[in-house]
């Protein structure tokens, strides 16, 4: 009996090793293919862009009008500056809609005071059901004629965005996080895909960059620096990989599933017909896009989601472990909720590349990866206890995986350096390379653990909310003349 058990465990460990190896090869191939596709997509984009002068959009009467929607909750620290920077974007015809989502601090009072707001009798076409709107405000001062502020009962980010959608007057809506710093030409760049494709474009997104330790003056980014803190610095690498390598590739395949909630532009009509943002999920950005795509498939309307690789938006990344864990927990829950809601699409040929490739790979390599990693490690520890662990295999495998991770990060750094050179000092690059070496050891386990907890929390129905992100505000610097 003991021998039978020993044989069984031995066979199981061999089978386990084989499965893990297969999965690792799969995930490595996945990243290699994405990297190659991204490089090609970037080359095509740069070639096409050399013939573009975005300034003609500024002066053209043919340029579409845009409604910029920004939900705000307890943003008293930065709201006045953030709104000012939104009002000075380089775009001719747009409105800025700030939705105060029942803030508990004095966000609303600060807005009223700074922008001379007064209540107006605006009737809203409530095409999406939302929590009650308490009042709508416009500025007395004509200098702020683009600004519209909506005060509403607290209902969460998704609900606030839906109010913005109901109130907006234009066919294109740009949804942003109010504390993000937008590049001045971000609207020009994001609007262009809606005008240049022969298929209907339903959404566009751009690259989100990490603003920690950057210098922001009066809501404008004036100087780019690599974040001082390790936690934030690692996220710079993560964002490089995700945006420059991941999303570029998926856009090239027309299989993109996610436009960042920090900044994205959408066809308002399609958003409304799809039902608006879902306030029952914490991954409302991904869920909306998947639902919009699903609607287009079901209506058999060829469409496209575009992605601009230029840095358009800068955001503050979590700088403490606690906040990072909450964020990654939420991202995991959001991913699973979206996959569950739209599970009918997975492996369903009626949903084209999304059904056959994007969603299945998202399940396998985005959702399951942390679980496979964690339980794989647990099983290995079990083998160690029983004395069946193959340490040679384990450390060889770990070495290969670690090397591949470093290589991917370094490639992402080179990609950014070749394409946009946002981090100009040599010290910046060196700092990022060193961070890449340390990431798998110190950062990755935190991400895996947070993802695991996200799965558990969703299973147990615990913590079904966004949680609070504590903002520290961007570094401010006054230049003396």
């Amino acid at each position, binding site marked *: 009996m003991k021998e039978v058990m020993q044989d069984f465990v031995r066979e199981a460990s061999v089978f386990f090793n084989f499965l893990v190896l297969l999965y690792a090869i799969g995930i490595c191939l996945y990243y290699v293919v994405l990297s190659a596709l991204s490089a090609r997509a970037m080359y095509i984009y740069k070639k096409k862009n050399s*013939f573009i002068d975005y300034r003609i959009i500024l002066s053209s009467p*043919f340029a579409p009008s845009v409604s910029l929607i920004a939900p705000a909750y307890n943003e008293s620290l930065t709201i006045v500056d953030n709104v000012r920077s939104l009002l000075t974007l380089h775009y001719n015809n747009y409105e800025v809609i700030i939705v105060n989502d029942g803030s508990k601090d004095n966000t609303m009072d600060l807005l009223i005071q700074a922008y001379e707001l007064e209540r107006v*009798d605006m009737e809203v076409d409530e095409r999406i059901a939302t929590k009650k709107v308490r009042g709508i405000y416009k500025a007395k001062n004509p200098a702020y004629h683009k600004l519209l502020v909506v005060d509403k009962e607290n209902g969460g980010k998704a609900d606030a965005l839906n109010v913005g959608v109901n109130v907006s007057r234009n066919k294109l809506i740009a949804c942003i996080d109010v504390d993000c710093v937008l590049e001045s030409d971000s609207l020009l760049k994001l609007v262009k895909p809606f005008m240049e494709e022969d298929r209907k474009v339903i959404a566009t997104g751009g690259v989100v960059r990490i603003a920690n330790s950057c210098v922001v003056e009066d809501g404008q980014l004036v100087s780019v620096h690599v974040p001082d803190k390790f936690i934030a610095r690692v996220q710079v690498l993560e964002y490089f990989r995700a945006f420059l390598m991941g999303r570029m590739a998926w856009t090239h395949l027309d299989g993109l599933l996610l436009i960042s909630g920090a900044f994205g532009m959408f066809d308002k009509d399609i958003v409304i017909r799809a039902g608006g943002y879902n306030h029952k999920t914490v991954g409302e950005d991904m869920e909306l896009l998947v639902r919009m795509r699903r609607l287009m498939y079901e209506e058999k309307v060829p469409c496209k989601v575009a992605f601009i690789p230029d840095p358009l938006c800068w955001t503050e990344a979590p700088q403490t472990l606690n906040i990072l864990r909450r964020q990654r927990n939420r991202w995991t829950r959001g991913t699973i909720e979206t996959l569950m809601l739209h599970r009918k699409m997975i492996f369903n040929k009626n949903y084209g590349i999304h059904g056959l490739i994007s969603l299945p790979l998202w399940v396998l390599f985005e959702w399951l990866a942390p679980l496979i990693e964690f339980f794989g490690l647990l099983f290995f520890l079990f083998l160690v206890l029983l004395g069946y662990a193959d340490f040679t295999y384990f450390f060889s495998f770990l070495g290969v995986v670690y090397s591949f991770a470093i290589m991917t990060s370094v490639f992402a750094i080179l990609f950014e350096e070749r394409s946009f050179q946002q981090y100009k000092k040599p010290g910046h690059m060196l700092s990022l390379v060193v961070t890449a070496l340390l990431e798998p050891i110190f950062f990755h386990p935190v991400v895996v653990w947070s993802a695991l907890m996200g799965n558990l929390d969703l299973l147990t129905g615990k913590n079904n909310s966004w949680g609070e992100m504590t903002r520290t505000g961007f570094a401010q610097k006054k230049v003396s003349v």
Partner: protein
Amino acid sequence: MIKESQQFITSFMFDEDIGQEEVSKFRRKHLINSSRCQIFTNTLLQLHKNIVGELSDRLRLLYMQMGLHVHSKQKLYEGSWNTIANGINELAEMDMQQDVNLIRSFINHYHPTLRSVAQVALLRIQKETPFSFLDDLQEPILEWQQLQLASAAHKAHIAMPAFKRWVFKKEDSIVTFCIRMIALYNQHEAEDVLVELLNHPSEKVRAEAIKAIRTLETYGAKEKLVELYDNETVDIKIDILKTLSIIADDDMLPFYLQAMTSAEKRLRLAGAKAMSLSGALGREALQRLKSDLENELQPVAAYALDDRL
């Protein structure tokens, strides 16, 4: 190479004694390969963009004498779309009228960026008939291309043709572009054609025609718009209401009131706004509704009268 190019070009611009011999000498010595040719071309073009008049003509002469025209034209026989586009841009910048037909052969190319570059180039070169390429155009003019054409036409200070000539083409995007240009350049002689286009099968064309009628204030379109209203989509109905508020008289007030009782809220709001913009009588009627707090149209009337919205 850049410095040498700049020096030579500057000398050539201001010294008429520099003739073909010196030019050939420079060319033999410095423009020994394609990259150096390109550097010189880029320097010349950059300078040409910022100069007008006689100096500009001098630069054009230099471009020809240096053989760069041949270098640019050769690009149009390459396989890569961006090389062709670069060649077209160079020829257009230097106003190479003799290459119009060659450039024109690209207006229906499969690559939209190249099509656009060719079309804008023709606009610049064919000053007498800038939009004549529309006769031969089969491919769609995407929104972005329309923007580029309109911008290029504005910058080129050319005499605009009568765009109504092309509003019955099969390709809807060409029709919508021409309608927009009719409105942009106040071509009132096209008003009858705009009214005809209200029967177009494409919703997009009808919408553009209605907007153009609004811009041109075509009073004669009133009856037709009212006739079409009931069978149109909500978006077009809103456009019709906006247009009627500009072109129609107070006799439309009952029409706006009917829209204000529509089941569709957007139409109620649009009807009320149209009434407020129609004149003093309309505003008075809305004021009475606003004062009547019991009336279900009170909020809509209050919204319409608020000029901040």
